[in-house]
């Protein structure tokens, strides 16, 4: 029964989680903490922290974690909890799956029409603005520290930012390799 609730709850989160990522957080909290009390507020904060530190989208991370904790908190065995984890994770991606397939089918028919072409011609420059906004929104003291609080860390952050930018833009270093380099730099400089 709890599996069914988990499934519907995360299906709903997947369906209404526009924009993904941080837009999903309040939605997840509403369902999982306030409505069903599967996990405590403290546990939920832990998930957000973990999601920021681990790879993967926050919607998927939290589905996996909540699915596990909810079943465990309800008194089942860890093996059953893994099943809960899988249930919630699949449920959260199912809506985008169905919608995406539908959109592809519709677009295949209308992609070459002048109306669709007009719309995408205007959307492309807009998307570049969206990416710029994402970068601007992330230039925060949480990610860079600040000159007043910790000038040493702020200086390193600005340097790593410039190095990553130049490295990928001018020297065509693979982004994954760049992340590994900067992680290693952090380990050496901060530990």
């Amino acid at each position: 029964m709890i599996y069914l609730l988990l499934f519907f709850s995360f299906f709903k989160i997947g369906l209404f989680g526009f924009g993904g990522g941080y837009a999903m957080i309040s939605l997840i909290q509403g369902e999982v903490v306030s409505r069903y009390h599967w996990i405590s507020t403290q546990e939920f904060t832990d998930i957000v922290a973990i999601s920021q530190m681990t790879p993967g989208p926050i919607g998927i991370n939290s589905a996996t974690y909540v699915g596990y904790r909810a079943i465990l908190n309800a008194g089942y065995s860890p093996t059953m909890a893994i099943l809960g984890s899988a249930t919630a994770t699949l449920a959260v991606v199912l809506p985008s799956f169905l919608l995406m397939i539908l959109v592809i089918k519709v677009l295949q028919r209308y992609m070459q029409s002048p109306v669709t072409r007009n719309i995408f011609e205007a959307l492309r420059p807009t998307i570049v603005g969206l990416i710029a906004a994402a970068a601007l929104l992330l230039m925060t003291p949480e990610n860079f520290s600040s000159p007043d609080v910790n000038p040493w860390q702020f200086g390193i952050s600005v340097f790593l930012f410039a190095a990553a930018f130049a490295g990928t833009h001018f020297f065509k270093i693979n982004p994954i390799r760049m992340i590994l380099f900067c992680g290693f730099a952090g380990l050496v400089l901060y530990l």
Partner: protein
Amino acid sequence: MPLTMNAYWIGFKTFFKIGCFTIGGGYAMIPLIEEEVVNRRKWLSKEDFLDLMALSQALPGVFAVNFSIYIGYKLKGLPGSICLALGTILPSFLIILAIALCFRNYSQWPAVEAIFKGIRPAVVALIAQPCFHLARAAHIKLTNVWLPVFAALLIWLGGVSPVYIILAVAIGAFLYGQFVKPGDDDSHGSH
């Protein structure tokens, strides 16, 4: 037979890798996806990439998963999209499951914190960098440069959701194409 299996395997592997290195979710995946899907595998052109970004933003759900579904479908139809979506989800599923099973509070480990202090500014640079070379693919000129600038400012300073901006631009472009743009007026016969 081995050839078709190989296509599934390469797609799965590529998105598994993308899933492994996405820290902070959402937009942090853009440079990785672009590098792998556009530059390396050549599954999409830069223009297709921007169109797909618009679609993924306008639909609910997790950004990278939407991408993997689209590309999987393009390569191998429905089984392809299932295969690639699983590839994207699996890394975060396994990592979070391991964390839920084994230990908690790992974000307080000094080494982990040091590595992430180095990675965070680099991730911001990796998000900012594609704006510059995607600008050409998006045909940004003096006449439409206001679109990305306005979009970025509205999201960054105005706190507007990207979903509304995409919808507004799409509707605007549709109306512009129907009523203002000269050329194919004959089709609807209003005058």
